[in-house]
């Protein structure tokens, strides 16, 4: 077996282009996914049967089928219908880029909605009752109490979901997109150095996951600051004027 380090260096800029597309796909579909997941999770956490049934079916379908089927359904499946091909959406639906984003967004929305729902149900009842007692209306409760609290609770689990989305984004290469995996496959078709190129692509994926994990650790630390708060005693020699009478007598 011959091992060519030079191929990796030679094609690294191309791989980086692919990595950029991967990041773009994850970021855009992640944002759309959150926007879809919030109303879904609120409906799912409701106590009305009909309000619950729709998001339940949606989530069950997207969590129970492979992402590959979902991408193919959007990219190849949509063209089966005459009315889709004649609609104003067709210029979007015929591009693999937008199809990938649609499929990833719908997929991640289903998984995140389930995360957010369990986070909403994990909010202590006392906090909702307190909001109620303050006279907040339901929409104000959702905006001021439920969503911020659920966000803080769901943050670590959502970080895992983003990593899974990053791994799933490799499937964009199956519909001709040149993401990190797609780019590696194109280079391999030219140079026939599968092990070298896949190793390089794998290392880039690992670096991106490390970045995402670090980002979420930081965000969790910032957002759930109250959990990390430690009261420190006021220094003994501090000027009496600067002392806070509420903290230390």
């Amino acid at each position, binding site marked *: 077996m011959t091992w060519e380090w030079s191929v990796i260096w030679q094609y690294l800029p191309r791989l980086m282009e692919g990595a950029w597309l991967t990041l773009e796909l994850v970021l855009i579909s992640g944002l759309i996914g959150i926007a879809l997941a919030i109303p879904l999770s609120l409906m799912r956490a409701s106590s009305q049967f009909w309000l619950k049934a729709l998001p339940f079916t949606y989530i069950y379908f997207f969590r129970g089928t492979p992402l590959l089927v979902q991408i193919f359904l959007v990219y190849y499946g949509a063209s089966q219908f005459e009315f889709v091909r004649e609609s104003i959406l067709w210029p979007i639906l015929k591009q693999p880029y937008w199809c990938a984003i649609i499929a990833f967004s719908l997929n991640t929305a289903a998984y995140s909605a389930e995360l957010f729902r369990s986070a909403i149900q994990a909010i202590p009842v006392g906090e909702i009752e307190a909001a109620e007692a303050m006279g907040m209306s339901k929409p104000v409760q959702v905006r001021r109490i439920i969503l911020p609290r659920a966000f803080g609770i769901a943050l670590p689990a959502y970080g895992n979901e983003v990593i899974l989305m990053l791994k799933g984004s490799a499937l964009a290469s199956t519909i001709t997109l040149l993401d990190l995996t797609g780019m590696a496959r194109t280079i391999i078709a030219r140079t026939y150095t599968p*092990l070298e190129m896949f190793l390089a692509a794998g290392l880039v994926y690992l670096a991106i996951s490390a970045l995402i994990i670090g980002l979420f650790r930081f965000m969790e630390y910032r957002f759930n600051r109250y959990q990390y708060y430690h009261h420190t005693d006021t220094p003994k020699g501090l000027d009496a004027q600067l002392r806070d009478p509420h903290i230390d007598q």
Partner: protein
Amino acid sequence: MDLQGFGHLLISGTWITIQLALASLVVGLVFGLTGAAAKLSNNRVARWLATGYTTLVRGLPELLLVLTIYFGGSQLLMWIASGFGYDEYIEIGPFIAGVAALSIAFGAYATEVFRMAMMEIPAGQWESGLACGMSPRRTFFRIILPQVWRLAIPGLGNLFQVLLKDTALVSVVGLNDIMRQSQVAISATKEPFTFFMVAACIYLLLTAATTGFTMLMEWVANPAARESRG
């Protein structure tokens, strides 16, 4: 829904998918148990290797693993074999490559599930086993493993669902599974939505069956809860 005579093709694809999932599950469980044993062992090298394995594999896309093993595996195997003086061509088929990739991925997550389950077992269980005069090995197989199994089943059930859905990736390297067979049907009928929807429904049935089977296994593995319900 009119399948235009392609139903038997989809059924044969389903059978291949089930075989692939079960084979990967068996090999993956071995990887997972080995990984968990290595992570909890006193040997620093073993711990280090297992941590490297789980960290690496959990950060890599499964598709990349499948592609690497399918396109690079034979090159790697031939290089290893040439070290033993074997210079013939070695080919890795899509099924073997699929089992290898999926079980490596499954094993990395299963390592964590088994490790968590093993850490849940109170030390007193070990001590009482030893106090009854059992050897450590016998204590492990008679007392610890059945309890680890009970604690690990819900986690493993979730992982198996992920594995089942990941089998679709092996169609990319040409295994005749559900996905591949639907594509064959589509190239003849030009009805992509219909056939991919049927494929999606087959996967839904399989995941639903897995959920049911996991619940049954939980019931079987937990005699205490079963008896207490009366």
